[in-house]
């Protein structure tokens, strides 16, 4: 289980801090929704390690990961934009999910397999900048597969997609979460995304998370 326990944070000059309790189970999508400015991005930054909490803990299967820097946390990140480096090819973007020590031959086959799993076989040579929004998110998910981290943080990942594409990407996220037993946390203010994916739902109001 991935959990945040009494995670506390306040911006400079903020009197009342944020306080977060959250649980996410493997193979499930846990959704966090809330109005704009409610603190969803703050929560995500705390979970990912970009912001340092003033109190509380983040644990994965009982192990405390609160002090770990972002690059060493057992998680992958998928953002609304900038999940890919636009000037690199899809293959090169996916390769970044692997350790640099991985042998070249293994890297090639692993990348091809990951791209195939997300429905992007044959797109490896294409520059990320030339891909559509949905294709970019698929490539980012392929990289997540190679990173093989147990937690996936999604920050409004479908916001820039049209209705048809967001439906297929949502399905892909759900399938990958169940197949790879990821603890997926979706931060979104779109009720239909939450309804379509989430097993467990939290709502962020008055600087605290409430289980719905």
């Amino acid at each position: 289980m991935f959990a945040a326990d009494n995670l506390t944070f306040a911006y400079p000059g903020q009197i009342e801090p944020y306080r977060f309790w959250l649980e996410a189970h493997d193979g499930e999508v846990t959704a966090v929704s809330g109005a704009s400015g409610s603190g969803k991005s703050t929560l995500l930054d705390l979970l990912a390690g970009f912001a340092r909490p003033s109190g509380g803990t983040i644990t994965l299967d009982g192990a405390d990961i609160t002090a770990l820097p972002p690059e060493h946390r057992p998680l992958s990140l998928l953002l609304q934009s900038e999940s890919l480096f636009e000037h690199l090819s899809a293959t090169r973007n996916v390769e970044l999910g692997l350790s640099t020590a991985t042998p070249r031959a293994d890297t090639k086959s692993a990348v091809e397999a990951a791209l195939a799993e997300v429905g992007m076989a044959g797109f490896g040579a294409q520059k990320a900048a030339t891909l559509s929004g949905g294709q970019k998110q698929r490539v980012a998910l392929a990289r997540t597969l190679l990173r093989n981290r147990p937690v996936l943080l999604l920050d409004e990942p479908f916001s820039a997609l049209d209705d048809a594409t967001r439906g297929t990407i949502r399905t892909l996220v759900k399938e990958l979460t169940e197949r790879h037993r990821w603890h997926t946390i979706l931060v979104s203010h779109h009720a239909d995304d939450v309804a379509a994916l989430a097993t467990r739902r939290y709502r962020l109001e008055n600087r605290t998370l409430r289980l719905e």
Partner: protein
Amino acid sequence: MTTLPIRPQRVAAGLVLAAAIASLIAVLLWAIFNAASAAPNTSSSSVDIPHLLRMTSIQAGLTTAISLLVGTALAWCLNRLRFPGRDLVIGIFASAIVTPGMIVAFGMLSIWGRNGWINQTTGHLFGFSIGNPAFGLSGILFAHVILDGAFAARILLARLDAIPSPRLKTGQSLGLSAIQRFAIIDWPAIRGTLPGLAAIIFLLAFTSFPIVLLLGGGPANQTLEVAIYAAIRQDFDLRAAVLLALTQIGVCSLVILASAALPPVPSALGPSKAQSWSDGVLARTLQIILLTLAAAAFILPLLSVLVSGLGNGLLVVMSRPNFWWSLATSLTIGTLSALLTLTLALLLSLGRGATARPGLRILLGVPVYAYLAVPAVVLSLGFFLLVRALGIAPGAAAPVVVVIANALLALPFAVATLGPPLDAITSTRGKLIRSLGLTSWQQFALIEYPLLGRDIGVVLALSFCFSLGDLGVIALFGTQDFTTLPLLMFRALGAYRGNDAAAIAAILLIGTTLAFVALPRLIERLSNVRR
């Protein structure tokens, strides 16, 4: 359909001004061509244009390459490291754009010269001298890289600061190494700026005057700019001066034409925020070493100017009436030039911002940038020949000419600073301005001026500092009765009065730094009061 407010009077005023500037350039060029054809062809002229062109190009090319390398490394270090006083260090590097070249040259001599700190130390401790590396090509390159490398670093740091936060988060969560991070995230962010920056640095180095004049150490390292000055002031060889000036204009025009298609280099720089994502221990150690070396190389010459200038020599200099006259002249010319630059830049930028027609926008922009092709000494030569052709004594025309010339030389930087934000204001708020029916004056007073406060301050500071430190224009027009501080310092150096020169250099350094720091803040505060 355009959403821009309809302001025909702004466009008309801009066009009239652009035409006036273009006419002035044409007249100055005509004066130069005319003098070239009228001057006797003396075979005794010792000017070797191919050699000068080669030396100037080599010097400018090396300066450009080394400055970009140093600037990139320095921007990389500043982007990564967090330490107390970081803002101050960045501010000092940012001030490189207005630090007069002759002050850096003087500081170099204080550190690396025959009687400099290093020779004094090695002589005292080990009994040997390192010679005089401040003179010659090495000294010129070092002084140029101090200024241009710091300038490049500040521009490139702004590009690194502008990398979107989500991109950095993605990179950090992927655990990119320092090398991967530079190659994948930093390099794409800065590489687009490098060609334009290279063109600016090449032009600055190609037309550099005081540094080459003070550190050149003889004809072997002379450049076109200094050769023009020498041809007029020392050899009285007008024909040679004109030929050199035409060569200079030709090369600068080629560089400007070649760089016209390059992405513009942003000139308005906001505060820099340190990254929370640090590199590994090895990279961080390298960054600390590089930054320390660069800071020492930049700050030590300036510090030495202050140390040697703020001693007894200061009181001696201040007891002389010609110092106070020169100070008053410098401040008056600086203030008038700054106000003239601001007026010209505002009128041209407001005109450009009021039209979406590409042809009109080019017409309003080209004459401004043409001045980059006509460096200070060449511009002065044109004015010098023009006033002579009009039968006016150069000394009598000097105050007006120096103010106009300094204002025109600062104009490209001023328009580059005011143009983009004015364009942004009219394009993003154009609909609202039109729907409210605001007049042109209301638009300026209520919307543009308050939003431009800091940029207006930057323009005033830049043009004031350029004028305060100018030696290129005043070198030809200065007389015993009409002297600025840089010219007074140059004469003191020529007369081997090192203490006097040091004191004036220190005053100039303090003056430019104060103006550069205080003016943008003052104008920003004033514009906020109005809001």
